[in-house]
């Protein structure tokens, strides 16, 4: 077929021969060619900016890291931690200390054993103020983690300690039941201490990159492609069926889509699925959509009139038709929001999805009459008979624009209110919402870990991400109570109560729950799509390609 393929086959032939030679002979190399499992994946819309797990923050780097490295645990398809480098772990009684036992056969791709000190080294480096890692906060749960990052505690006081080569003791500030779900996240991956101390730029080049995951980084041509090959040193290599993953960097989704259609790619996410083709691709069955625990919403600036009034906020929130937005505007399989915490988020007390254990705070269609009544009451409370000029701010994007236009019409129709639309460039938008220079703004929120808390603690008074400036003592108290225990029943109860309050006060207006769309050829099997929105190819395989 293409020269690409010929090259690849040649490469594979060389690879397999080297391998056979290394094994001291064996059967003829010619026979192994058709058995080679090579996946061409469209998951890199840009060059991965940083493959050092200590400082990586983006999804392309995340994809590579999740396949070339492994944390203490991996995530199962239902969001539970399953053994990774650690084969067992036990928390102490009050949940403030967890002892991890590392498996004996966990090895780095250079053959070194994975030691507990590799975790201690990596985690302390994440927290080191000099590293200035964006995701340092993922380790603020560790005892003195936050203080060390602020330069107020000593490195040795941080609550992570390698007791011996295979035992890691982790001490937490307070019981954090979702800490376990974080141990599969890349910020908490180990780093080969001796490699990193020798060469601090070990992660900048495929030649020096050392991982401990199912694959190893064979080639990294900047802005062009990455090649991952099976890691023979991986403890669970028997489960890994792919010999190679090719990860071309595809900067234009339309080009990616054509590549997929011409068979050059086997699977891919939004990297190869342009927004404007999602609806038709879903309809034709070319693309599939998975629900993910993420929420799209508008926030109100509660410090500015008229949205300082809860009734007015609620009136606006009730006056939109969420069903119509997902069916006619976004058209990507999204679900109308029934509350703030999205679907696919578990209620850890009932072992059921959170959306099933709560009442629906919002209806799919607009409640025009109630909204009108609330608006009148609210305006009376504020002593105004006319609303000031109102504008929706959003960052320039075709999708956000369409939704804002639809909502503009709904508010006109159901509340008889005229609003203006203000679009601006992404970083300008972030600047404006952060400084409170907006009335209504949009935001999409993805979870940091698999627990409703990753959504709920956003809105506490003075919270770093609380751009609504909303402040409610009762809410703060409920979140604080939920955070101070590891009793799941109490935690979930408090958070349900908090969400009810949030939906009564409505500093934010949920719109829809996200989906993740992807395309995958039928011959690709065994792909795991995880609740943290990542895709895991460690056990994937091709059949009958």
């Amino acid at each position, binding site marked *: 077929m293409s*020269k690409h393929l010929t090259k690849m086959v040649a490469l594979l032939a060389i690879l397999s021969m080297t391998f056979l030679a290394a094994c001291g002979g064996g059967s003829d190399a010619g026979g192994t060619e058709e058995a080679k499992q090579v996946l061409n994946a469209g998951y890199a819309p840009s060059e991965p900016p*940083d493959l050092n797990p200590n400082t990586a923050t983006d999804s392309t780097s995340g994809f590579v890291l999740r396949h070339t490295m492994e944390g203490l645990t991996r995530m199962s398809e239902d969001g539970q931690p399953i053994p990774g480098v650690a084969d067992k772990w036990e928390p102490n009684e009050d949940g403030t200390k967890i002892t991890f036992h590392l498996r004996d056969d966990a090895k780095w791709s250079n053959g070194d054993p994975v030691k507990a000190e590799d975790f201690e080294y990596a985690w302390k480096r994440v927290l080191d103020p*000099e590293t200035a890692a964006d995701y340092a906060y993922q380790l603020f749960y560790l005892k003195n983690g936050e203080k060390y*990052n602020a330069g107020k505690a000593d490195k040795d006081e941080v609550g992570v300690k390698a007791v011996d080569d295979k035992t890691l003791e982790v001490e937490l500030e307070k019981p954090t039941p979702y800490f376990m779900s974080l141990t599969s996240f890349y910020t908490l991956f180990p780093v080969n201490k001796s490699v990193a101390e020798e060469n601090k730029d070990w992660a900048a080049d495929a030649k020096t990159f050392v991982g401990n995951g199912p694959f190893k980084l064979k080639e990294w041509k*900047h802005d062009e492609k990455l090649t991952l090959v099976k890691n023979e040193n991986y403890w669970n290599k028997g489960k890994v069926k792919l010999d190679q993953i090719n990860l071309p960097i595809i900067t234009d989704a339309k080009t990616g889509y054509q590549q997929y259609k*011409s068979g050059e790619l086997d699977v891919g996410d939004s990297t190869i699925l342009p927004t404007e083709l999602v609806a038709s691709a879903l309809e034709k069955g070319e693309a599939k959509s998975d629900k993910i625990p993420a929420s799209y919403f508008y926030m109100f600036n509660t410090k500015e009139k008229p949205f300082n009034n809860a009734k007015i906020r609620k009136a606006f929130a009730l006056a939109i038709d969420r069903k119509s937005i997902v069916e006619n505007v976004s058209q990507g399989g999204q679900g109308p929001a029934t509350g703030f915490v999205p679907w696919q988020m578990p209620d850890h007390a009932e072992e059921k999805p959170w959306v099933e254990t709560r009442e629906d705070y919002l209806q799919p269609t607009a409640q025009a009459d109630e909204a009108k009544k609330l608006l009148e009451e609210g305006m009376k409370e504020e002593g105004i008979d006319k609303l000031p000029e109102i504008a929706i701010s959003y960052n320039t994007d075709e999708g956000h624009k369409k939704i804002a236009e639809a909502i503009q019409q709904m508010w006109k129709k159901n509340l008889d209110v005229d609003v203006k639309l203000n679009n601006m460039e*992404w*970083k300008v938008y972030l600047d404006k919402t952060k400084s409170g220079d907006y009335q209504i703004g949009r935001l999409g929120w993805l979870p940091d870990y698999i627990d409703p808390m990753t959504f709920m603690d956003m809105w506490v008074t003075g919270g770093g991400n609380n751009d609504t400036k909303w402040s409610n003592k009762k809410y703060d108290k409920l979140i604080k109570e939920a955070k101070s225990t590891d009793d799941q029943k109490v935690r979930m109860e408090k958070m349900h109560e908090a969400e009810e309050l949030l939906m009564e006060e409505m500093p934010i207006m949920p719109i829809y729950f996200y989906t993740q769309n992807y395309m995958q050829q039928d011959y690709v099997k065994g792909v795991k799509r995880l609740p943290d929105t990542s895709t895991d190819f460690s056990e994937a395989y091709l059949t009958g390609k």
Partner: protein
Amino acid sequence: MSRYIGKRLVLMLVTLWVISTLTFVLMHSIPGDPFSSEKKLPKQTLENLKAKYHLDEPLPVQYVLYMKNLVMFDLGVSIKSETRTVNEYISDGFPVSAELGAYSMILALVLGIGMGVLAAFRQNKLADYNVMVLAVLGLSVPSFVIAPFFQKWFGGDWLPLMGWGDFKHAILPAVALSFLPLALVTRLMRSSMLEVMGQDYIRTARSKGLPPWRVITRHTLRNAIMPVVTIIGPLAVGILTGSFVIEHIFSIPGIGKYFVDSVLNRDYSLIMGITIFYSALLILVNFLVDLAYGLIDPRIKVGGKEAN
């Protein structure tokens, strides 16, 4: 001559300094910072980050620091990526962009001059009309429209849709990128040829009985090509800016797309680095074009008394 060149070089350095200073000021005056995202970072993390990239210092100090490094040809580290320095971004990406740009430039000049000459000699005939339709298309249809069509019509096993490596990877993007400059050169060449062909000395040459090809090469072309040489500078700018889009569409590992991305990311050092690099390049191209005048047209004295 050498005095002229020396003067020009000094002037070029001053221009470069003005550009970099302006860029520095403008870049820091637009709202937003490199570390903002929808998930806001804790205050102390932000402080750590700012300290790491010296963004916690007052702007004048940052400026002096930057200029100091610049003199040493050190463009700093990218804020967005720990992997590569700005120098590495440029040394990795520029050869690719330059190769692509060179193909497009050659294509535009060779084809454009050829078609322009052809159109001028067949003025108001079928060949002229065809060439002009093509030129109008090239001028009016932007490359981000042409490129996907090319991918759809011609992309396939022998002309890859994307990527970089062999010559065949360059064909589609180079053709797409050359569309606009090609149209410009063709139109310019045609009108300039027509003008020159009406001159008395051409009539004289013809009446002397010179063979037509000699009239074209010795007398017409040499005079008519001047305007085209003049626009090579702006043309290079056009190809560079055009490459921002083309590199994106064809996933080409050049430096063009970082010109836009770096601004969107507020990656200060990368913005500065690429701007300064491109400016230096364009200043150099313009300088070379000026020198080339003298070679083509002996009437122009580069660095002569009248040019000073």
